[in-house]
C-alpha cells in the first residue's frame, strides 16, 4: 500500500506540472499583448520595460514558463492589477471561505446522499426507491445556480428568514449572524453531490445485496445489523472515492453558486478577476483551485487504496 501511495505521489508531479503549464499558457491565450494584461493601465514606459524584463516577456516561451514556475514555487503569484495586493494573499483568503462552504455542502450532500442511497438500495424498486431515484435525477439535472435563485426567492424574498447575499459582517465568527449566510449556499451546493452519491450508493448497495455472499451471511443466521455492516464496508471505498471527487468539483465549481450568493470565496474572486481583466489574479486563482483538485484526487485515491485491498495498480 505504501508503495502505491508513493507511486501515486510521483505520478502527481507531472500532472501538477502539466496543470501549471496550462494555467501559464492561459494568459498567453488572451488576445493582445500579455504584458499589457499584466500592467496597470497607467504604467509608465519605464515600468513597462522593467516588467518586460522581470516577467521575461522578451525571452522565449519555455524560459518564461521556467521563470513563472520558479516564482510560483516561492509563493509569488504576482500582483493583482485591481487591488495592487499580492495575488497569493487574496487567493488564500478567498479559498478559505470556499473550503468552508464546500466542506459543509459536502457533508450535507454526503450524509443525505448516503442515507437515501442506502434506503433506495435496500428497498429496491419499492416506492422509497422510486422517490429517491427521482430526487437524485432531479438534483443532478438541475442548474444549481437556478436552484440557488429559487431558494433565495423562497427563503429571502418571500419568507425573509435567511439573507440572500454575502457572508455577514467583516471577520468570520461562528455565530448566527455569520452562519445564517452559510445555509442557503451550502444547501444549494449540496444538491448535485447528493444526487450523484445517492445514485452511486443505491446501485452499489443494490448490487451487493443481490450477491451471494449476503445470502450466505443471512443463511448463517447473522443479524441484519451485521449484514448491514458488511455491506457498508464493501460500499465504503467507492463511496469515499465518489465523495472525494464531488468535493473536488465543489471546490472547483463553486464560482456559480458564489456568484449567486455573493459569497466571498475563490469562485467569486475568479468572477471579479474575469470582469476586471485582472489576469494575474485570474491565473493565480485558477492555479490554486486546480492544484487543490489534483491534490484532493491524490488523497482520495490513496484513501481508497487503504480501505479497499483489491485496488490494483495501473
Amino acid at each position: 500500500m505504501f508503495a502505491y501511495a508513493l507511486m501515486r505521489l510521483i505520478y502527481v508531479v507531472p500532472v501538477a506540472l502539466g496543470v501549471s503549464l496550462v494555467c501559464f499558457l492561459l494568459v498567453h491565450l488572451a488576445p493582445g499583448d500579455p504584458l499589457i494584461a499584466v500592467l496597470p493601465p497607467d504604467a509608465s514606459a519605464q515600468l513597462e520595460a522593467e516588467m518586460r524584463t522581470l516577467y521575461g516577456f522578451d525571452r522565449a516561451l519555455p524560459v518564461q514558463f521556467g521563470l513563472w514556475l520558479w516564482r510560483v514555487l516561492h509563493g509569488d503569484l504576482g500582483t493583482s492589477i485591481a487591488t495592487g495586493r499580492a495575488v497569493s494573499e487574496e487567493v488564500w483568503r478567498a479559498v478559505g471561505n470556499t473550503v468552508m462552504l464546500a466542506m459543509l455542502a459536502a457533508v450535507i450532500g454526503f450524509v443525505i446522499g448516503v442515507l437515501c442511497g442506502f434506503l433506495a438500495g435496500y428497498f429496491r424498486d419499492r416506492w422509497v426507491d422510486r422517490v429517491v431515484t427521482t430526487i437524485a435525477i432531479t438534483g443532478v439535472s438541475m442548474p444549481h445556480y437556478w436552484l440557488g435563485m429559487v431558494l433565495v426567492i423562497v427563503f429571502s424574498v418571500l419568507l425573509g428568514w435567511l439573507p440572500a447575499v454575502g457572508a455577514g459582517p467583516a471577520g468570520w465568527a461562528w455565530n448566527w449572524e455569520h452562519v445564517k449566510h452559510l445555509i442557503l449556499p451550502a444547501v444549494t451546493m449540496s444538491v448535485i453531490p447528493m444526487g450523484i452519491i445517492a445514485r452511486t450508493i443505491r446501485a452499489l448497495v443494490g448490487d451487493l445485496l443481490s450477491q451471494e455472499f449476503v445470502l450466505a451471511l443471512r443463511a448463517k443466521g447473522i443479524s441484519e445489523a451485521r449484514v448491514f455492516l458488511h455491506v457498508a464496508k464493501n460500499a465504503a471505498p467507492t463511496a469515499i472515492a465518489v465523495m472525494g471527487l464531488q468535493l473536488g468539483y465543489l471546490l472547483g465549481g463553486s464560482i456559480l453558486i458564489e456568484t449567486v450568493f455573493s459569497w466571498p470565496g475563490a469562485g467569486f474572486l475568479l468572477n471579479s478577476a474575469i470582469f476586471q481583466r485582472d489576469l494575474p489574479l485570474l491565473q493565480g486563482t485558477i492555479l490554486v483551485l486546480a492544484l487543490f483538485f489534483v491534490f484532493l484526487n491524490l488523497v482520495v485515491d490513496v484513501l481508497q487504496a487503504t480501505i479497499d485491498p483489491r485496488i490494483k495498480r495501473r
Partner: protein
Amino acid sequence: MFAVEPLAPAADVGGPGQPLLQVRGLSKQFPVRGGLRTRAGVVRAVDDVSFTVNKREVLGVVGESGCGKSTMARLVIGLIAPDKGDIVFDGEAVGDVLSLRDLRRRVQMVFQDSYASLNPRLTIEDTISFGPRVHDLAPNQARARAHDLLRKVGLDPALFAARYPHELSGGQRQRINIARALALSPRLVLLDEAVSALDKSVEAQVLNLLLELKEDLGLTYMFISHDLNVVRFMSDRVMVMYLGEIVEEAAAEVLWADARHPYTRALLAAMPSLDPDRRTETAPVAGDPPNPIDPPAGCRFHTRCPFAEAVCSTTKPVLMPTGNDRHAAACHIGDPASGHSSAGRRFTE
C-alpha cells in the same frame, strides 16, 4: 473448385521435398510488470523453438495452458513479432523475400473462441469477404467467394450469409471461422484450439470437415490443442511443448506407443479412461506447475519429474533424435552421454 479464381493459393515454390514451414530458434518473451511499474521479470513464452512442417501433413501441438502454443501460433502468422529466430515458408524467408502481406496469403488461423473471433456487428458474408476485399478483390466477387466458402463448410449461403454471429450456434460459428481462414486461399492453416469450446458431437463434425477440406484443397495444418485424443485423431506428427520449449516430437502413433519424455508419458497416462481395468492409482505428475516467470534451472520439467536426478537440475537437455528417424526428445534419459543413471535405456511399462 472455384469457377473463377482471382485469389489463387500461392504457388508451390519449393517442390514436394521442401518443408512448407521451417522455424529456427524462435523466441519471444514478455515483460512482467512489478509494483512500482518496474519489470519484475520476463515470461519466456517461446524459448528457442525450432521445428518443421511438411507439405500436406497435420502437425499436432500439445501442451498445458501457458506452455506457449498460442504464442507460437501468433508468431508464425506474424501477429506478434519474434525477439529472435527465423521463419521460412516454402523455402522463402519471411521478412526477407516474403513480406508480411505475402505471408497473409499463405498462412491463416482459426481461433478458439468462436464468439469473440467474429465481429458481432458484421454479417457473416461481410466477415468472410473482409480478407479478400483487403487484398483488392471487387465487392461482388468477394461476396460470391464468401458464398462459395460457406457452401464448402456446409452452410447454405441463402440462410447464413446475412446473419449475425449471435444468431448462430458454436459449431456454425467455427465453420464460419474456417471459411474465413480459407478466404485468402492459404496453404498453411493454424488451428489454435479450434474445437476446444465445442460440444463433442459438433466437434466430431468440425474435425471431419477439416480433414475433408485438407484433402480437397491440399492444405497443411498445425493443430494446437490440449486435448490428446483429438490431436491423435487429427495429426500425422505431434509436437509436445512445456513452458515454452519443445520437449518431444514424433509421428502420432509412435508417440502414443513409445513416448520418450517423462512429461509426454505423464500426459498420456493422465488421460482418463472408461475402462475399469485401467484405473489411475497415482497422479502421473507431482507438484505444482512452476512459475513461468522463473522457470527451473536445467531441465524445466525436473521439479515434477519422477525420474529427475542431479544432472537434470544443472544441465539443460537438448532436443535430440532417439535413434528412430524423426522422433526426438529432450531428456537426459534418452542421451547415453548425459550422466543420468538411466541414460540410454527405454521406458518400460
